[in-house]
């Protein structure tokens, strides 16, 4: 809970809050992530640029090198190559389901919004639960999936997997964590 | 002749000398002896330079010296003509005496800020000499302003609130006048495109394009500009400036400031407007009326004064207007008298002031009613005072007689009998206000408590119990006595030998230039 | 060709402008000013000034709003008017 971070702090060296180790100042410059970042950014560059003459390509290479040099540790902090590809493939498999869920839930919210007696239908409330994830990335994907699914918004996530979700009515809040958690766990191979 | 002391460079060196002296004074501010010797040296050199020019001017005519171009058709130039030389000689010769006197006065009173005093004094002399020698109005204006500004710290030297307010009054009158002077110069420049002095006037060509009224207004601008001449509505700075130390008053009244004023008026009347134009515009009459009014009123003021210095101030106003009236008569004799009176009045008035200063410095008295019996205590001083006072109303063996005589002749010459009467009345009133002083000093009795015995030395002995400083600084007391004795002597000499320092010749030459003959 | 859109957006610009200076909360004013910049950006895109729109999008929407918020963060939010 964020509010607890300013508790009664007297003893020397008391732990105030546990936070993820910041990737930014640990100079883990691995070659793999550098190359991967370079390749990824170069693909995006080609999409953006749309010019395939030598001059622009070389500009692109220089730009991608700069990006890879400066932010490889941001984009891909620690994953192994094989793992990464698997995750991506699974993520793409996950997307249609997510889109479908979003669409369904959207219709629900539309119904709520356009209903003349809206105030009686909605019943906002905060749901708290603990998920089984420990990996940041899966926490993140799960949290964003929850937010994307209308009717629910992630209020906060902690590193150890505590979630608080705001739901607009009972129906939206009920399925959590449920199926979605399972699918996200599948992606990350947990 | 070549070199720095060639004839053509003498005007320049006359102007540069005070500047050099001023800065030498400033540099040697920690060493009083050195500082004062610079002053003396400078004044002597200046006098030599100026007086060395008069034979040349008399023989070969004016010395021209152009330095650089200030404005189109206006150069920063000097033109040493006879009239200018009269004024220059007067002021430079008096500087020597005033410097001597200052040393005595300042040291005996242990005045503060002496460096500033000598510095400003030198600059004031620069102003006076510059005014005398300048060849056009703009150059004159430069020096006129220098004179005004450099005398301001002198007037307020005492640094008391009254002194400072007197200084402010002084500045306000003179710089305010300076503004009008500037307008006059501007109008002159606009009308005729030049401001060079010419013995026949330069403004007469302007009569066509510009109306008479314009020229008359311009004349009054000039007249206001020369508020230094202390004619009556703009005189009140002069009595209040009396708060200054006596040598400064001497400088103001006798040497530089007021003389610069009347000098300027004469320059305007004779060299800018010219006699003919003055007559045509009827300005002579106007000027004479103002001056006549001033003479009468100033005399009446003077009679009522109890403070000696204030009385002398009104006396000065009166005498200055006498010069103005003489000029305004526009006859050769009168103008010659006016020019002579500049010099003669300078010498006589300085005598009076130095006496007044000596009285104050020694006895600490300022009011005339307290002067009883001083004549016996300070015989030299009071004799000199007597000479000065009689000179003022033109008693025969004294210098004032010569100039007054010329003026009276001039008045007759021009047929202005009204003004003749006023001149005479003025002279008589002079006697009236000097009487109390003379009577008090020579016939009054000193009060019991302050009885002085014997001559000056004994007096100093007596006072030594009360005032310590007089005793300790006794030798410099002579610095005060000697100058006033010298001036008193000169007041007599000028009557007997009017051509001392070639003054008379120079005046005659000037008048000849203006009128083409006496 | 599309003056109607322009008309609406110009009206919005005025509303946002007035809003930004009347809101009694500096943070709100900053946010509304950001929205004002959005509208300006849109307006310029409609008028065909793409480069200006781009600049306004990056400057007005992004940087200047952030600057405002930083400044409000470092000073105070309350205001009398």
């Amino acid at each position: 809970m964020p509010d607890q971070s300013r508790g009664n702090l007297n003893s020397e060296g008391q732990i105030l809050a546990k936070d993820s180790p910041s990737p930014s100042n640990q100079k883990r410059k691995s070659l793999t992530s550098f190359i991967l970042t370079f390749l990824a950014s170069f693909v995006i560059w080609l999409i953006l640029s749309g010019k395939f003459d030598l001059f622009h390509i070389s500009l692109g290479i220089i730009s991608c090198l700069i990006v890879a040099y400066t932010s490889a540790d941001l984009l891909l902090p620690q994953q192994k190559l094989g793992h990464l590809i698997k995750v991506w493939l699974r993520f793409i498999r996950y997307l249609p389901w997510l889109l479908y869920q979003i669409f369904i839930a959207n219709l629900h919210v539309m119904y709520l919004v356009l209903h003349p007696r809206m105030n009686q239908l909605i019943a906002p409330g905060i749901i708290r639960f603990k998920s089984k994830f420990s990996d940041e990335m899966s926490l993140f994907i799960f949290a964003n999936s929850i937010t994307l699914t209308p009717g629910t918004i992630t209020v906060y996530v902690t590193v150890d997997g505590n979630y608080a979700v705001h739901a607009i009515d009972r129906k939206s809040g009920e399925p959590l964590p449920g199926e979605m958690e399972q699918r996200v766990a599948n992606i990350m191979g947990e | 002749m070549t070199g720095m002391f060639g004839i053509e460079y003498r005007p320049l060196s006359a102007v540069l000398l005070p500047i050099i002296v001023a800065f030498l004074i400033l540099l040697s501010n920690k060493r009083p002896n050195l500082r004062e010797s610079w002053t003396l040296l400078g004044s002597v050199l200046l006098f030599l330079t100026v007086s060395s020019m008069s034979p040349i001017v008399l023989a070969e005519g004016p010395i021209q010296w152009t330095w650089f171009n200030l404005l189109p058709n206006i150069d920063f130039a000097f033109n040493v003509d006879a009239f200018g030389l009269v004024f220059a000689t007067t002021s430079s010769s008096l500087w020597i005496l005033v410097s001597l006197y200052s040393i005595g006065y300042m040291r005996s009173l242990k005045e503060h800020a002496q460096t500033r005093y000598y510095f400003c004094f030198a600059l004031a002399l620069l102003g006076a000499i510059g005014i005398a020698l300048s060849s056009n109005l703009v150059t004159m204006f430069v020096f006129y302003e220098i004179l005004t500004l450099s005398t301001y710290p002198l007037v307020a030297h005492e640094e008391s609130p009254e002194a400072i307010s007197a200084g402010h009054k002084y500045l306000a009158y003179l710089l305010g006048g300076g503004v009008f002077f500037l307008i006059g110069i501007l109008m002159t420049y606009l009308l005729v495109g030049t401001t060079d002095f010419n013995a026949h006037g330069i403004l007469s060509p302007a009569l066509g394009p510009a109306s008479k009224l314009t020229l008359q207004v311009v004349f009054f601008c000039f007249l206001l500009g020369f508020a230094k001449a202390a004619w009556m509505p703009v005189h009140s700075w002069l009595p209040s400036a009396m708060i200054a130390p006596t040598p400064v008053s001497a400088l103001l009244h006798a040497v530089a400031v007021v003389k610069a004023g009347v000098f300027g008026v004469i320059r305007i009347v004779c060299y800018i407007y010219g006699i003919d134009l003055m007559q045509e515009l009827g300005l002579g009459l106007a000027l004479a009326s103002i001056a006549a009014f001033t003479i009468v009123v100033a005399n009446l003021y003077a009679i009522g004064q109890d403070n000696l210095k204030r009385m002398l101030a009104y006396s000065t106003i009166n005498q200055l207007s006498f010069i103005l009236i003489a000029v305004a008569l526009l006859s050769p004799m009168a103008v010659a008298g006016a020019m002579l009176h500049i010099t003669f009045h300078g010498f006589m008035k300085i005598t009076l002031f130095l006496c007044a200063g000596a009285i104050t410095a020694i006895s600490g008295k300022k009011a005339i009613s307290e002067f009883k019996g001083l004549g016996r205590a300070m015989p030299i001083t009071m004799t000199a005072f007597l000479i000065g006072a009689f000179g003022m109303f033109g008693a025969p063996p004294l210098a004032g007689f010569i100039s007054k005589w010329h003026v009276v002749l001039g008045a007759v010459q021009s047929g202005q009998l009204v003004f003749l009467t006023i001149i005479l009345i003025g002279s008589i009133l002079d006697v009236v206000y000097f009487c109390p002083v003379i009577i008090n000093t020579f016939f009054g009795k000193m009060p019991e408590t302050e009885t002085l015995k014997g001559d000056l030395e004994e007096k100093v002995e007596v006072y030594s119990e009360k005032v310590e400083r007089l005793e300790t600084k006794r030798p410099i007391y002579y610095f005060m006595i000697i100058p006033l004795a010298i001036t008193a002597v000169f007041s007599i000499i000028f009557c007997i030998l009017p051509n001392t320092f070639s003054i008379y010749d120079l005046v005659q030459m000037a008048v000849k230039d203006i009128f083409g003959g006496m | 060709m599309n003056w109607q859109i322009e008309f609406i957006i110009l009206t919005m610009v005025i509303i946002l402008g007035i809003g930004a200076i009347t809101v009694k909360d500096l943070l709100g004013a900053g946010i509304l000013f950001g929205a004002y910049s959005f509208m300006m950006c849109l307006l310029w895109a409609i008028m065909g000034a793409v480069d200006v729109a781009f600049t306004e999008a990056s400057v007005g929407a992004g940087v200047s709003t952030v600057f405002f918020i930083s400044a409000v963060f470092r000073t105070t939010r309350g205001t009398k008017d």
Partner: protein
Amino acid sequence: MKAFALIIVILCAGLLIYGTSDFPPWSDPESPASTHVSPYYIEHTIEDTSVPNIVTSVLADYRGFDTMFETIVIFTAGIACFFLLRVTKREDHESRLYHHLVTGVTLRIKEGGKLPDESEEFRRVDTEWVPYSLIIKITCRLIVPFIMLFALYVIAHGHHSPGGGFQGGVIIGAAMILFAISNDLRAAILRLSEKMATFFCSAGVFIYAGTGLLCLLLGLNFLDYGALAKILFTDPVTARSHGILAVEIGVGIAVMGVVVSIYYNLSSAGKHDEGL
């Protein structure tokens, strides 16, 4: 005061409306503004500079001097913010919270306790510190490289599409700001130190002005990129195009540095601590 201001405002409005009445019709192709100078730019941009984006060619070449000083304006702003806000002294009572990077634990050191050095392991945290949201952090981690790439693309393709040095520079700066917001200012400063940002400000302007000076040294007028043909071994038109690119890169670097520098100083009021 209000009434007075209202009067002035209404007077100004009246004056402006008065002036508006003589305007040429709105969006008129025949108006003087569209027929006097600007057609030259439109018709000659390809043959003079081979840059299709007329705005870029006018900005960086025809009126390149303007743009140079536009860069200087922003440089001035950066230096001015630094000059106004930066404080180097720090009160000691503030330096009590520390972040242990390896474990991600935040510590508070009691009064009199030994303060750890700022090092790889420990980092000072300020009293206003609050834990940063995981979601925001990861999102920013993912999109910052993308934004930077996009910004570089914008700079590099200023010739052909809208954008250019200024916009690109601002977007890179925005990426840095995003990073600073999602983590904290110290993390951002560790990536791009203040001195580095200042150096970028100067370097960007230096590239621009240096290009101009190079042209001067090569014998043509200041900022006449045609002179660069001598060292690029191309024809003057291509040289101009490349000159424009160089200039845009300069602008981009400078603007990035300035935006970052201003943000650093504004968000922490010059103390360079926690920031927004």
